């Protein structure tokens, strides 16, 4: 996909600029997102049927896209306990919006290196957690 995009960019724009590198950062972030989705699918497939695993993964993915909305829920109309719960949940669920740099890529705006490192770490740590969970579940399964 990245190579195809690179060729398309060269075709449209014969001289590439430094800002165009953001497009490849966006591709890298898509890859990180994909890694996280695959890890979640692996976890769910350890303890449920393939169909439910697909549904759970898709569900978590959709929720993960709207984590910010979970934080923006009207605090004034919720109890303090509910507020604390939604806030905690919003930090524990995988936040797929972290990997969305579409706007920056569209306008060739640079992305700080720290942001790339943090997102890489985030994906790595989250994948580790999910895969540890998968190992834990799988190790307790009776395969006989």
């Amino acid at each position, binding site marked *: 996909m990245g190579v195809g995009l690179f060729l398309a960019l060269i075709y449209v724009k014969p001289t590439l600029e430094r800002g165009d590198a953001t497009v490849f950062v966006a591709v890298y972030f898509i890859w990180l997102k994909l890694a996280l989705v695959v890890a979640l699918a692996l976890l769910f497939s350890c303890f449920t049927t393939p169909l439910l695993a697909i549904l759970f993964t898709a569900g978590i993915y959709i929720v993960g896209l709207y984590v910010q909305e979970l934080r923006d829920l009207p605090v004034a109309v919720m109890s303090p306990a509910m507020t604390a719960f939604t806030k905690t949940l919003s*930090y524990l669920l995988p936040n797929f919006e972290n990997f969305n740099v579409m*706007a920056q890529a569209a306008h060739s705006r640079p992305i700080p290196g720290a*942001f790339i490192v943090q*997102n890489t770490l*985030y994906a790595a740590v989250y994948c*580790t957690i999910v895969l*540890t*969970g998968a190992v834990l579940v799988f190790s307790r399964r009776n395969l006989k």
Partner: protein
Amino acid sequence: MKSAKIIVLALVILQGGFFGIWRLQHSIDKQQAALKEERDYVLLSSPKLLKAASLEYAPLMADFYWTRVVQFYGNKHVRGDANLQDLWPLLDITTTLDPHLLPAYHFGGIFLSQRAPGGAGRPDLGVQLMERGIKANPDYWRFYEDLGFIYYMDLKDYKKAAAAFQEGSKNPKALIWMKAMAAKIAEEGESYETSFFLWNDIFMTTTDKQIKENAKTHLLLLRVHEDCKKLDQLSDEYEKRFGHRPKRVSDLHQAGLVQGDPVDPLGYEYVFDENGKAALSVDSPLLEKQLFLEHFK
């Protein structure tokens, strides 16, 4: 035994991992806040391309973009963000997709032209938008009023403002005051009465909540400006009589120069600043609005 070790190790990884995620997410949020300070409301900025892509649904698409204009301005207004650089591309797309969407011209004309923080501070684009609106909707005389308003309020070009009102007054549907306004501006240039009339007309005729609120603020501040001017004149008179300037506005009342203690439109008593000039009280909510607008002058 081995199984217990695995469970303990897994629990440690899970706990440590989620703690790490929590910390990382906070750092990412900070980075994202800086990255998305100026959110991209316009990814496709070519109105012609969008019109072609909308096929026969261009007016429907225009409605979507019009909603985005209102949301964009509302969000910026709520957050106190004065950067409205995406307002023009959004309005450009909206009015290209549907040249007959009258509220978009009216809203855009005001908020593109008005200086920050209330507007984008681009009266040139405001004029461009209004001229486009007039071209597409020649029978709608209110656009001449909006055009004249921009020339009068934002560009201070009274000759062109008078010409716009004059041109609009030729429309048989135009109200009679358009002609009177053309004559008054041509003769006097800027005056309190004209400014008050124009803002008041916007306040009375608009159905848009944001435009109404903006007009109300300007009307109140215009009244404050006029009150302070009058109080300064009375202070000069007081000084002539007593040899010193009044310390409080109540001194003017005691000297019989005013009836009652002068108050601003919200009922807060005016004060005299260290230079002896009349000003809003620090308790008045209008002071914040006044300072905010003056900050961007």
